[in-house]
C-alpha cells in the first residue's frame, strides 16, 4: 500500500543538524559586533531589603566604563509575561525581594572592566525580615514581599466542577494526602544572553536574544523602554534549550537595549551559570493536598485539591501556572466532580516560572501517587484502576474540553505490557519494582490574546519554497517539523524548503514556544499558507492538464490526477508553464491560524475548550534499589504515547527520551536548595542533573490517532511526556520496598532511612 504521506511521518534529521555538528550554529553569545560593549549586573546579596542608597560614582570613573544604571534611572513600568500580573523591573527600584535580584547594571569595553566596576559600587541596604515557604507566607503577620499583596497571594483560583464538594457525600471511600514537589532548575546548556544594537537615526532597536517568545519579548521591551513595537526587531538565533526558562524577559534584555540606545554601540549581556540559578526561573516548589472520593467499584467520583505554589519573589506566569495546574487535573481521567483551590504565593526566593509541564508535573505527581495508594488500599491493580477511569474521545467533559481523539487507555495497556506488568508488579524480589503514571497535555492553550500564528510560503522559479514563520525553534526542531508540513502539502522534498523563522522584523506574528503549541498552531498556519499557494498553482495546472483542480495531487515534485502519477507533470514544468503563461511570480500563500474558539475561554473566569487538542501518555518504570547506598537505579522506562500523527518520529522519540531523563532528575536527583533564600547549589557541580550514566533502557510506543484539528493529525509532543515519569518512578519504588514517598526528590538518604524503618517494623514482603 502506498504510504499516506511522503514527508510527514518520515524520520528526517533536523534542518540545522549539519550546522550544529560543525559548531557553526550561531547562538546569541556567538554574535560579536564591531565596537561591542559588555554588560554586567550587580545583584542583591539579601533576600529582602530596602535600598537606601546607591553610590556608583567610583564605577563611573573607571576607564572603559561606558554606562551605569540603577532602578532609579529606568521608567516606572513593570513587565511580565502575563499582562495582568506584571510586577517586575529590570533593576530593583525601592527594595530587593530575593538574593540575586538585579540592582545596578554596568557596561564597559571589556567584560573584566565591567566586573571590576561592579566591585566599586556601594549599595546601602536595610535588611527586612524574609519569608521562605508559601505556607508561612500566607499566615497573618508574615512579612509582605510586595506591599500591595496581602498574605503574599499574588494569584489564586477557586473552581468547582460538577456537584463540587457535595459529591463527597456519595463516595464509598475517601483518601486525603499531601504531597510536595521541589524546586527544579531548567538548566538549559546555553546560558541566557542578549545583544542589542540601536540605530539613532531611525530610532530602531535590534536585539538578538536567547528567547522562546520573540514577540512577547518585543512587547515587553517596547512597554518598558518606551519605543514603539514597530521599531524593535527581536531576532532569535539558535537557542540552546529553554524548557520554559527563556519565556520571560530578563534584565539582560532590557539593559542591553538601554545601553545600546544610550551609548550608540552594540551591547552584549551574558549570564553565568550562577545567575541562571538565582535570577532566572525554576519549577515552582508546590504543596498539593488531594482528597479523592471513590466508589466501591474503583470509579473516581470526586476530587478536592488545595495547592500552594512557591512563586518566589515575582509572578512570571503565576495566573496561568495555577490555572493549568487546576484544569489538567481533569485529564486523562474522568473526574465528574472536582473542586480546586490553588494559590500562587510570593516568597523571598528565586522566581518560579513555566517549566516543561508548567504547574502540572507537581499536580500529576500528587494524583498519580495517590492513585497507586488508593489501588493498594482497595485491592485493585493500579493499571486497571487507570484504565477504568480513563477518558475517552467525544465524551462530555466537566471542564468543557472537546476531546476528539484519546489514546489513553490503550497507552496504559501498551505501557503495562512493555514493562512486563503482569509478571512483575508485586512479584519482583524486595528492592525491585515497577510503577506507572499517566498524563495528558494541551497542544497549546487556546483563546488567550496573541495566541495566533502566521506564515508566508513562496514558490520560486527554481522549485524551492521559502517559508516565513514566527515559530521559535529552541532546539526541539520546530523549524523542521513546520517545513515538513509545508513540503508535504506542496509535494516537494524537505530539502526544497528554506526556512526563515522567529525574527519580528521579517516573520509573521507568532505566539512563541510555550504550552507545547508550536506544531499545532504554527504548523496549521504554515499548512494554510501552503494550501493557498497550492490552490493558485493547481488552478493553472488543472487547465493545462484538462483536469479538475480538486482531483490534483502534489507529491515528490510531481503534480498529477489522483491515482495516475505516471501521467503527472513535474513541478518544474508546471512552474515553467505558469511563468510562460505570463502569470505573476512568485506564487505566494499566506496563513494565519488560531484554535477554533466557539466557546471563548478566559481561563480564570469561564470554562470552555482549553486547547485545540490533547496528547495522552502512560509511562512505566522499573527500578532497582541499592541497599548499601540507597541509590535508586531506573532500569527501564517505557512511554506509550498518543501525539496524534507524529510529523517526525525521530524528533518525537528525542522528546520522549529527554523527558525521561528530566523525570529521573525530578524524581531522584534535582533540587534547588535554598537556606534563607540563598541558593546553596547554584552550579552544575553541586546541582547535578542526570548524565549518560543514569540513562535507563528506553522504549517508546506510538499510539497513533488522527486528530481532526492538528496539521496532518498531529498533537503536541515533548511536554506532556514530562509529567508522569517522576510519579512512575516513585510508584515503582513503592513496589520495590513498600514505602510511600510523598515528597520529591527521593534521595539516597530518604531511601536508607526508609529501609532502616522497614527493618525495624519487619514490613518488607518476602
Amino acid at each position: 500500500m502506498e504510504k499516506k504521506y511522503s514527508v510527514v511521518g518520515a524520520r528526517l534529521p533536523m534542518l540545522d543538524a549539519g550546522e550544529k555538528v560543525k559548531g557553526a550554529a550561531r547562538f546569541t553569545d556567538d554574535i560579536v559586533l564591531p565596537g561591542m560593549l559588555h554588560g554586567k549586573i550587580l545583584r542583591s546579596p539579601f533576600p529582602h531589603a530596602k535600598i537606601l542608597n546607591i553610590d556608583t560614582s567610583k564605577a563611573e570613573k573607571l576607564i572603559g566604563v561606558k554606562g551605569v544604571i540603577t532602578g532609579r534611572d529606568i521608567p516606572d513600568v513593570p513587565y511580565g509575561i502575563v499582562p495582568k500580573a506584571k510586577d517586575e523591573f529590570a533593576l530593583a527600584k525601592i527594595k530587593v525581594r530575593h538574593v540575586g535580584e538585579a540592582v545596578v547594571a554596568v557596561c564597559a569595553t571589556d567584560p573584566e572592566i565591567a566586573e571590576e566596576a561592579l566591585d566599586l559600587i556601594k549599595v546601602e541596604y536595610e535588611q527586612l525580615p524574609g519569608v521562605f515557604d508559601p505556607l508561612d507566607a500566607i499566615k497573618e503577620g508574615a512579612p509582605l514581599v510586595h506591599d500591595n499583596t496581602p498574605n503574599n497571594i499574588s494569584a489564586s483560583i477557586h473552581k468547582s466542577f460538577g456537584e463540587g464538594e457535595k459529591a463527597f457525600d456519595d463516595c464509598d471511600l475517601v483518601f486525603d494526602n499531601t504531597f510536595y514537589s521541589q524546586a527544579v532548575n531548567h538548566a538549559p546548556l546555553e546560558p541566557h544572553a542578549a545583544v542589542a544594537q540601536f540605530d539613532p537615526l531611525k530610532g530602531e532597536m535590534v536585539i538578538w536574544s536567547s528567547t522562546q517568545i520573540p514577540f512577547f519579548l518585543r512587547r515587553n521591551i517596547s512597554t518598558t523602554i518606551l519605543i514603539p513595537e514597530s521599531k524593535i526587531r527581536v531576532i532569535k538565533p539558535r537557542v540552546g534549550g529553554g524548557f520554559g526558562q527563556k519565556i520571560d524577559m530578563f534584565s539582560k534584555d532590557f539593559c542591553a537595549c538601554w545601553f545600546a540606545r544610550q551609548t550608540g554601540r552594540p551591547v552584549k549581556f551574558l549570564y553565568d551559570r550562577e545567575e541562571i540559578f538565582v535570577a532566572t526561573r525554576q519549577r515552582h516548589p508546590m504543596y498539593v493536598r488531594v482528597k479523592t472520593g471513590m466508589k466501591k467499584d474503583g470509579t473516581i467520583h470526586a476530587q478536592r485539591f488545595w495547592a500552594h505554589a512557591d512563586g518566589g519573589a515575582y509572578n512570571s506566569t503565576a495566573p496561568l501556572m495555577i490555572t493549568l495546574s487546576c484544569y489538567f487535573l481533569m485529564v486523562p481521567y474522568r473526574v465528574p466532580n472536582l473542586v480546586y483551590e490553588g494559590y500562587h504565593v510570593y516568597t523571598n526566593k528565586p522566581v518560579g516560572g513555566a517549566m516543561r509541564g508548567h504547574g502540572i508535573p507537581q499536580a500529576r505527581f500528587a494524583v498519580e501517587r495517590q492513585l497507586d495508594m488508593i489501588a493498594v488500599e482497595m485491592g485493585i491493580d493500579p493499571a486497571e484502576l487507570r484504565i477504568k477511569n480513563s477518558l475517552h474521545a467525544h465524551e462530555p467533559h466537566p471542564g468543557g474540553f472537546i476531546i476528539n481523539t484519546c489514546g489513553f487507555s490503550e497507552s496504559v495497556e501498551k505501557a503495562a505490557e512493555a514493562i512486563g506488568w503482569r509478571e512483575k508488579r508485586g512479584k519482583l524480589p524486595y528492592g525491585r519494582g515497577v510503577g506507572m503514571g499517566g498524563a495528558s497535555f494541551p497542544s497549546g492553550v487556546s483563546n488567550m490574546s496573541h495566541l495566533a500564528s502566521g506564515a508566508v510560503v513562496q514558490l520560486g522559479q527554481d522549485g524551492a519554497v521559502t517559508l516565513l514563520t514566527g515559530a521559535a525553534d529552541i532546539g526541539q526542531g520546530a523549524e523542521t517539523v513546520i517545513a515538513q508540513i509545508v513540503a508535504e502539502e506542496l509535494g516537494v522534498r524537505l530539502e526544497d524548503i528554506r526556512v526563515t523563522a522567529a525574527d519580528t522584523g521579517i516573520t509573521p506574528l507568532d505566539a512563541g514556544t510555550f504550552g507545547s503549541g508550536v506544531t499545532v498552531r504554527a504548523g496549521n498556519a504554515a499548512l494554510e499558507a501552503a494550501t493557498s499557494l497550492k490552490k493558485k498553482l493547481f488552478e493553472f495546472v488543472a487547465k493545462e492538464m484538462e483536469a479538475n483542480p480538486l482531483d490534483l495531487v502534489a507529491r515528490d515534485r510531481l503534480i498529477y490526477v489522483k491515482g495516475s502519477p505516471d501521467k503527472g507533470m513535474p513541478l518544474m514544468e508546471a512552474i515553467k508553464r505558469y511563468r510562460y503563461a505570463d502569470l505573476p511570480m512568485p506564487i505566494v500563500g499566506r496563513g494565519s491560524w488560531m484554535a477554533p474558539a466557539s466557546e471563548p475561554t478566559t481561563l480564570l473566569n469561564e470554562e470552555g475548550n482549553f486547547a485545540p487538542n490533547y496528547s495522552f501518555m502512560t509511562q512505566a518504570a522499573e527500578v532497582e534499589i541499592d541497599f548499601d547506598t540507597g541509590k535508586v537505579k531506573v532500569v527501564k522506562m517505557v512511554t506509550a504515547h498518543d501525539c496524534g500523527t507524529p510529523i517526525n518520529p525521530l524528533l518525537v522519540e528525542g522528546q520522549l527520551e529527554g523527558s525521561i531523563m528530566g523525570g529521573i532528575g525530578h524524581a531522584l536527583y534535582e533540587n534547588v536548595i535554598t537556606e534563607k533564600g540563598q541558593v546553596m547549589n547554584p552550579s552544575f557541580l553541586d546541582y547535578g542533573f542526570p548524565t549518560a550514566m543514569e540513562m535507563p533502557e528506553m522504549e517508546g510506543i506510538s499510539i497513533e490517532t488522527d486528530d481532526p484539528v492538528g496539521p496532518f493529525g498531529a498533537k503536541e509532543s515533548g511536554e506532556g511526556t514530562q509529567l508522569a515519569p517522576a510519579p512512575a518512578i516513585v510508584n515503582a519504588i513503592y513496589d520495590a520496598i513498600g514505602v510511600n514517598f510523598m515528597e520529591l526528590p527521593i534521595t539516597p538518604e530518604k531511601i536508607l532511612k526508609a529501609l532502616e524503618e522497614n527493618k525495624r517494623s519487619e514490613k518488607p514482603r518476602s
Partner: protein
Amino acid sequence: MKQAINLNVNGDTYELLVAPNLTLLEVLREKIGLMGTKRGCDLGACGACTVLVDGEAYLSCIMLAVDAVGKNITTIEGLSHEGELHPLQRSFIDNGGLQCGFCTPGMILTAKAVLDEDPSPTEESLKKKLAGNLCRCTGYKKVLDSVMDVAGQSSKEG
C-alpha cells in the same frame, strides 16, 4: 604582563598576546573567533567546551591558554576535512543525536577521543566516558546510538 604565545589550532598557528589568566576557551572564542567551542558553565562541569589537546579530550574552560602552547588543539571546526564531515558528525545527524546542539561539539569531540582510544567500546563503558558531557535535551539515548553506530562501523572495517 601579557604574554606573546603561539597556539596551534586545527593545523593553523596563531600568534597571540594573552593575559596569563585567560582560559583556552576564552582565547578560542574571543581572540581567534572559533565559536564552535561552547561556554556552558565556566567550571569544568558540563563538557560543552571540550576540545582535543594532542588527541585527548580537555575542558577548555579550565585550561589556561598558556598551558596549551606547543600542543595540537583540535576544535569542532577542525574535525571535518575539505568539507567532508567526520563519520561521528554524520552519525549524529542521521541518528538524531542532537537537539539544541549546544552540547554537540563537546559531545562529538569527547566521543572522538573515546573511539580513538578504544574503537569498539561497550555501551556501558561509553556511558561512563560520556558522563562528563551534559545534555538536557536528548536523554542521551540517541547520542549513544550515534557513537555506537560509528564504533560498529570501525570495528567492522577493522
